[in-house]
């Protein structure tokens, strides 16, 4: 009842159009800011959520770009590897050590006759995408475990076997085959059995255990040299990080471009998020200015009534509460409406992307809700501040 009487005295004499304008501005501003937050969260979720995570995407094999200048010195120095390790976007670095001896593999079976010269690489086990229990080697081992890139099997099955009229092989069959590995040593060829223990999607090399590589390089190396790495594997949280791409470019390094393809998407998303966020914040600032002006005009046009209300014993707190109740609730409605609209959009996006095997949360994130509450708090603070300021001046 008191509020009804106060409403009769303190009218929105600053004009309904101006008030509506402020509300429309505020709606667009809140929607843009919340969209920017939700977009960022969605993108982050797509990159990092387990369901969507691409196991090869977090490991990148990095090597120098081969140019006329660095032919023969393609290996990475200890300083270069240390520098890569020190980058914030790199979690850990594993050296790929190449074999420095001649080797060949050939089939033991008449049914799959093949022979080829080969070179190996080794990498610390934690950088492998395979956890085979047979992935160990020592001098007493009966056979040499080898990890083969999946691509090799694909080449064999879809090109080589067809052209040579050989049977196609499944990964299970490949793992059962035992073949002969021959190493050229200074004292003549050394043969041993070899067996494929796993097929890797991550590293496109014939891999052998590090213990074997160290043993063999020490004994059979053609040239005296160090175990310098020609390439490294890096583990990174976000292969799409534009900083990573920039770093590699600056240092003359390269990696599988496909794995860093997210970098371009990421830049586009960052751009959209920034534009949406900045436009939203600018609009919010303008809407707040219009609101402040509106409050000022309303109080100025009712200054006699306000002065008389104070004379009648109305406390500044009562007046402030009344004015806040008059100006503030539309903002709550706007924020709630913004959240509902973004929730609906998010659900639609979830349904749409589900059909494309991309899993997104059907609900808006907690960050978006926190952002909405944050905006409401900012508006409350600004409204409260201007009401207090203008009430004090008008008295």
């Amino acid at each position, binding site marked *: 009842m*008191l509020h009804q009487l106060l409403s*009769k005295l303190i009218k929105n004499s600053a004009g309904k159009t101006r008030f509506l304008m402020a509300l429309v501005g505020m709606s667009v501003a809140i929607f843009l800011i919340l969209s920017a937050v939700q977009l960022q969260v969605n993108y982050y979720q797509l990159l990092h959520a387990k369901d969507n995570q691409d196991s090869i995407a977090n490991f990148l094999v990095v090597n120098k770009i081969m140019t006329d200048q660095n032919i023969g010195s393609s290996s990475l120095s200890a300083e270069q590897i240390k520098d890569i390790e020190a980058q914030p976007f790199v979690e850990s670095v594993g050296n790929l050590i190449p074999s420095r001896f001649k080797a060949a593999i050939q089939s033991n079976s008449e049914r799959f006759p093949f022979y080829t010269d080969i070179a190996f690489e080794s990498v610390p086990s934690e950088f492998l995408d395979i956890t085979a229990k047979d992935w160990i080697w020592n001098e007493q081992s009966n056979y040499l475990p080898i990890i083969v890139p999946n691509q090799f099997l694909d080449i064999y099955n879809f090109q080589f076997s067809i052209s040579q009229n050989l049977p196609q092989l499944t990964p299970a069959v490949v793992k059962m085959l035992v073949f002969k590995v021959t190493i050229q040593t200074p004292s003549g060829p050394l043969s041993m059995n070899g067996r494929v223990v796993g097929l890797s999607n991550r590293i496109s090399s014939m891999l052998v255990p590090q213990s074997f590589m160290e043993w063999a390089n020490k004994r059979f190396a053609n040239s005296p040299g160090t175990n310098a790495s020609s390439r490294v594997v890096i583990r990174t949280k976000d292969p799409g990080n534009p900083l990573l791409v920039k770093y590699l470019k600056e240092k003359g390094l390269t990696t599988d471009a496909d794995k860093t393809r997210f970098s371009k998407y990421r830049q586009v998303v960052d751009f959209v998020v920034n534009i949406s966020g900045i436009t939203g914040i600018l609009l919010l600032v303008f809407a707040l200015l219009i609101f402040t002006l509106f409050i000022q005009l309303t109080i100025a046009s009712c200054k006699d009534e306000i002065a008389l209300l104070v*004379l*009648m014993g*109305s406390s*500044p*707190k009562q007046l402030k509460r009344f004015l806040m109740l008059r100006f503030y609730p539309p903002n709550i409605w706007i924020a709630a409406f913004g959240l509902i609209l973004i929730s609906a959009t998010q659900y639609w996006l979830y349904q749409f992307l589900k059909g494309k095997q991309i899993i997104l949360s059907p609900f808006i994130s907690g960050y978006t809700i926190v952002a909405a509450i944050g905006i409401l708090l900012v508006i409350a603070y600004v409204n409260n501040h201007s009401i207090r300021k203008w009430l004090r001046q008008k008295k």
Partner: protein
Amino acid sequence: MEISLQSLIPIPLKDRKLHEQSAIWKSNCLFRQAEWIKIQAPSGTGKTSFQHILYGIRHDYEGTVMYNHQNLKDFDEDALAKLRQEQLSVIFQDLKLFGNLTAFENIELKRLLSPGFKTTESILEMATLLGVDGILHQPAAICSYGEQQRIAIIRALMQPFEWLIMDEPFSHLDDVNIQKAATLIASECKARGAGLIITDLEADNHFNYQRVLYL
């Protein structure tokens, strides 16, 4: 609540000779709880200024006004609002009604600022007693001055108070209506155990004054 004045003088009156015989200006003066005091003064001697100073509207004065040993100038806006809601009620000479509210709404607004003290029915009772029940739903701006004066009286009685300060409250009322209004005010003050301070031009017997002071 006691009101004590020490060497009080509004700055605009400071250099005038008028206050030399005054019992209030530039004097020390104590208004005891529940005292009924008449302050008589010709025009231009500062009756309205006195009321405004007591009510905390004017601050351009020298000397001090103390409410129970607390200097009025030290009251912040919340303390002043509390004083006006609970301890001090006022009838202004210029009435200060909201012209765009009805007579009833003017009174009701005051009642709602001190909720729980008087009922809406008491508004109707008092309005009937003072003969303004018929105009309660008219905008205050179009009521006659005499009617407005009675509305302002009823409004002042809608709140708890320890002092009722009135500035020529019956100036536009006939004797019969003055008698009715004075009776109502007296009974309301007695019910609260409250004091009253009335300023007027002439001597009168509207109330049983314990003191008559000359400004």
